[in-house]
Each structure stands twice: as structure tokens, then as C-alpha cells.
């Protein structure tokens, strides 16, 4: 089930100049993402899917058009406003986990909560809940370097959901994992979508991964080809 409109991209374009050459990634791109959606974005290398993810995550800005999130325009926010917006609304899951090697698992998960006004006690409670959800309660004090790839990605998922964001953006979340572990991670994302109503946008090369999504958008040369999937 999907709800109201969460994201709305209106006539978005993105280009950059390399030397004297102007390279256009998107031109007049329109799309919307509803609350509770689980969207997989696929496409060949250079199709613009990571650029799209960057735009959705507010880590890059479009050169034209407008991006609306939850009825507020976000493409015109300043860097510091965007940082706050990301902290309040987005959870990121990266291909290579991007955990802080000098922190243990629970400290990694706690990072987004340091941007909130929660007390240390409340933070600890939320971290414990997130660690339990990803099945790593017993490894909370372990350094992430002592963990397997799958466990590290689960820590990254706990970090992404600990502050209860509306949207989770995943960049090739299973790209560095074996099939079995990848399926476990994708099942976990599916669970977050179905049971906790999290909106998930996932960029992937892997058609098996895309099967976990409610719908798939194929991106080619900056244009979409939508394909419905059985959820």
C-alpha cells in the first residue's frame, strides 16, 4: 500500500561541464514517489541513477527544475539547511556500508541521534531498539571491523533507521555481498517497507534485488521506463 505523495520532481535537469563540453544527465525529468513506496532504480552505468539518488538525498543540486519533498521545496535550500533536512528525513545505506571504523557498532548507529535533542538515555534506548530490529543486539559493543559484510550492512541499516526517517535511500546495498547475505539484507529492507511503512528508494544493478521492490524504474540516458512488479 502506498500513501500520499512524498517526493515530486518537476522538470528536473542536471548537467555539468567537462572542459568545454557540456554533459547533460537529465533534461526535464518528472517523477513522483509516494509514501510507503519501495522503488528500485535500475539502469546501465552512466544512465544517471546515482546522480538521481544524490538529488533525492539532497547531496547534489539540480541545474534546473524543482524538487519537492513532503510539500516543501528542497532544491533551493542552503548547504546547512540541507544537512538539517537530511538529518530529519533521510536514512542512507551505502554499497560499502560507510561505517566509522574507529567506533563500535552501537556508536555507529548512534551517530544520527547526536543531531537530535534526545538525551543520552533516550539515544541508548533507540540504538538498542534499532540493533534488535536488525538482529545484532549481541554484537552492539563489537568493532565493525570484526564483523562480516552482512553484519556491517545490518549495522548500516540500523544507523539509517535509528532516527525514524521518512525515506531510506540505498545505493547498491547488496553490491558487496554474496547472494545469501544479499537476500537477508533485501528481506530486511522489505520488512522495513511493509511492516514499518518506510519509503525506500534503492539503486541497483541486480535484477534479483529489484524483485524485492514494489516497482522498478529503468533509467536509460536520463529517461525513465517504468515497469510494475508484483509486490
Amino acid at each position, binding site marked *: 500500500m502506498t500513501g500520499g505523495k512524498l517526493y515530486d520532481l518537476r522538470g528536473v535537469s542536471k548537467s555539468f561541464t567537462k572542459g568545454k563540453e557540456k554533459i547533460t544527465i537529465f533534461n526535464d525529468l518528472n517523477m513522483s514517489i509516494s509514501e510507503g513506496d519501495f522503488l528500485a532504480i535500475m539502469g546501465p552505468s552512466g544512465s544517471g541513477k*546515482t546522480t538521481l*539518488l*544524490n538529488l533525492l*538525498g539532497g*547531496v*547534489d543540486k539540480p541545474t534546473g527544475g524543482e524538487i519537492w519533498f513532503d510539500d516543501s521545496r528542497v532544491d533551493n535550500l542552503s*548547504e*546547512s539547511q540541507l*544537512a*538539517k533536512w*537530511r*538529518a*530529519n528525513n533521510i536514512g*542512507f545505506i*551505502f*554499497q*560499502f*556500508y*560507510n*561505517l*566509522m*571504523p*574507529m*567506533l563500535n557498532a552501537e556508536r555507529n548507529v548512534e*551517530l*544520527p541521534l*547526536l*543531531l*537530535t*535533542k534526545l538525551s543520552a538515555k533516550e539515544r541508548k534506548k533507540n540504538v538498542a531498539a534499532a540493533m534488535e530490529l536488525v538482529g545484532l543486539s549481541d554484537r552492539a559493543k563489537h568493532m565493525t571491523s570484526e564483523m562480516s559484510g552482512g553484519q556491517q550492512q545490518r549495522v548500516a541499516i540500523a*544507523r539509517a533507521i535509528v532516527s525514524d526517517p521518512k525515506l531510506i535511500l540505498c*545505493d547498491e546495498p547488496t553490491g*558487496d555481498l554474496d547472494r545469501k547475505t544479499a537476500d537477508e539484507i533485501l528481506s530486511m529492507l522489505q520488512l522495513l517497507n511493509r511492516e514499518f511503512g518506510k519509503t525506500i528508494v534503492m539503486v541497483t544493478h541486480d535484477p534479483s534485488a529489484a524483485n524485492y521492490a514494489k516497482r522498478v524504474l529503468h533509467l536509460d540516458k536520463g529517461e525513465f521506463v517504468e515497469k510494475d512488479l508484483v509486490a
Partner: protein
Amino acid sequence: MTSIFSQIITVVMMNIRSLPRRFWMSLAATLAIAVVVAVLLSFLSMSNGFRKTLEGAGTEDTAIITRSGSKSELNSVLSNDVVNIITTAPGIAKDANDRPIYSAELYVVVDGIKRTTNTKVNIPMRGISQTGFDLRKNVKITEGRMFEPGKNEIIAGASIQREFSGFELGNRVKFGKTTWTVVGIFSTGGSAFESELWADARVLQSQFRRGNSFQTVRVLLSEPGNIDGLLKAVEDDPRLMLDIQTEADFFKEQGEALGGMVKLGWILSIVMSLGALAGALNTMYISVTEREQEIATLRAIGFSNISAFFGTLVESLVLSLLGGIIGTVAAYLFMDGLTTSTLGGNFTQVAFTFEMSSDLLMNGIILALIIGLVGGFFPAWRAARLPVVLAFRGGA
């Protein structure tokens, strides 16, 4: 505000904890800063010790009179007539018999063997009277006795005995054709006078063929620091071509002889600082490059660029502070209290002790922090401006 503060603390702690990944490079940068600080403090403590040794020799109670333009005691010559005239000037304290209290003194150079280098150097020998002894308030005989007037006897300053060989109590030493017996050792509380040999002025005049002349006259002032009466006497009497200063001012001027050394110390330290600065910059740029994905990830999560900036800057300051502390501790351990001698204003050896002070140590720490601040600023600026999209690139 609390959030920003906790972000900065978090990033700083993460950066500090990640230092073992860059252990050798960080250590090299820290040690480079330590060396710069140690060198600076060595120069400054040397200058500090030399200045204090000379300043400690002078008081405001006593004025020193030398020939005009002589600049040092060694270059001055005063005839007995001039001594007789100037000691009648107003402003000089009188004894119970209403006689001016003064000490006409000779100052000659003799050879001594420096213990540390076993080389022959100039050491000063002063001809004084009992009044000259009394004019110096901190002086006391620590071994043996005072020389007897009319005899070839000397008393040696404690520094002379420590730094130069052959001046033990009872030893006989030969200067030119004359032989002298060391009959006493005296202390003046560490001032420059301790680097002198003292003998009876009249005997010295005779043995060094100085006739009736002296080199300096020290007078006890009736009012400490007030030399106006003496200056007026010189001004009013064309026979008197004299310089008059309080002893405190005279030795302060002599102490400035090492001013050039202090400047050299600073210049050397600044030049070396540039090397340490390059090391700090390099270390911090590498630190930022190594952590750029971590920084970008934190930014993606919502951490501000201010936290990235201060996280890097504080890391640099911590390394430089550590270097500063190592440098000051090393300088303190190896330099503080080290005794040596050098050529003073009279072309004679002055023994002195390297002396650290809290101000000097603070100078070392401040220099280290300046290196850390400059060395960390530009890499921190880079960290703050790293594009957040870097979080999505490359492998861990």
C-alpha cells in the same frame, strides 16, 4: 548550539581515535614541532639565564663610574686624581667618619682553563678593597678566608671554581710572572661577580703595572637610584669625562649583549617552524584525504561542515600541542639548570645557568599551537568543503 557542539566533539574524538592509522606520519609531524620548540626554548633559556646573571649583579644602591665612552669596565681608565675628585661629589653616602663610601677598582684579564673544553679562555680578575667587598650585599666567603691586603692572595667566585680548573682552595696559580694563592671561595648568589677572581687592588696595581690608575669606581648612593648629584658634578667639571650609571642599569646594558642571540634563536625557530609547518600541513592533508569518505558520510547523515572543519583543526592542534609538550619537557629536562660560560661584555667569560620559566615554556606551547593552527586550517577548510557525494564513491 548543543547539537553543533556534540557534533564537533564526536568528530574530534573520531579523528583522534583514527590517529593510529596515521601513526608514523603523525609522530613525525609531532616530533618536528617538538624539535622546533626545544630549539627555541634552549635559546630563550640561555638568554634568560645570562640576563638574570648579569642583572643580579647590579643594584640601585650603587653607581658605577667609568671613563666616558668606554662601555665596559675593561676599556675604562681612571686616574687617581679623577677618583679623588668624583668621590667628593654630592649624592654619595658617607660613613661614620663622614668619608664617602666608594670602591676604586681594577679589572684585568687573566687566563683560565675551561673544564668542559680544556681550552684557555679569558677570565676576569678584579682588584678591590674591603669597601668593595662590603658594597656587594650578597657576597659571602663560603670556603677559606678573605685575602689579606698587600699579599698575592686571591679569592675565587663559586662559578670560577666550578667552570675553570686550578682554583681550588689553597692552590697556587701563576698569571704572567706572578704567583697567587687561592685563599677563599666566595658566592654572590649566582650573579656575574661569581665569575671573577678578586684580589687586593693595590697589589694588582703593582703586579700588573697600572701605577695609581683604576678602571672603575663604585659609590654607595645616599638615595638609591639617584645619580643626579654625580651627573651634575661631571657636567660642572671639565676635568671629568665620565659615564655614570646605577649598577643595575650598567649590568642590564651588558645583559643585552645576548639580545642578538635571542633574535637568532627566534629566526632559527621560525625557519625551522616552516619545515614543521610543511610537515603538519602534509599530515593533515593526508588525514583529510584518508578520511574523506568518512567525512562525506557524516555530512550525508546530517553533520554540519563546521564539525568537519573543527574536527580536523582540533586534530592538528592536539598533535601540535603534544609536540609542544614534548619539546618543552625535553628542553626543561636537558637545558634547565645547565651551567656554562660565554664571552660577556668585557670580553671575559661569564658563567651562567640556563633558566626556564613558566613564561618561556608558555612561549614554546604557543609556538607549537600556532604551527598547529596554520597547519590545520587549510586542510580543515578542505574537509569542510568536501562534496557530500564522495560518500557514494569508492570502496571502504
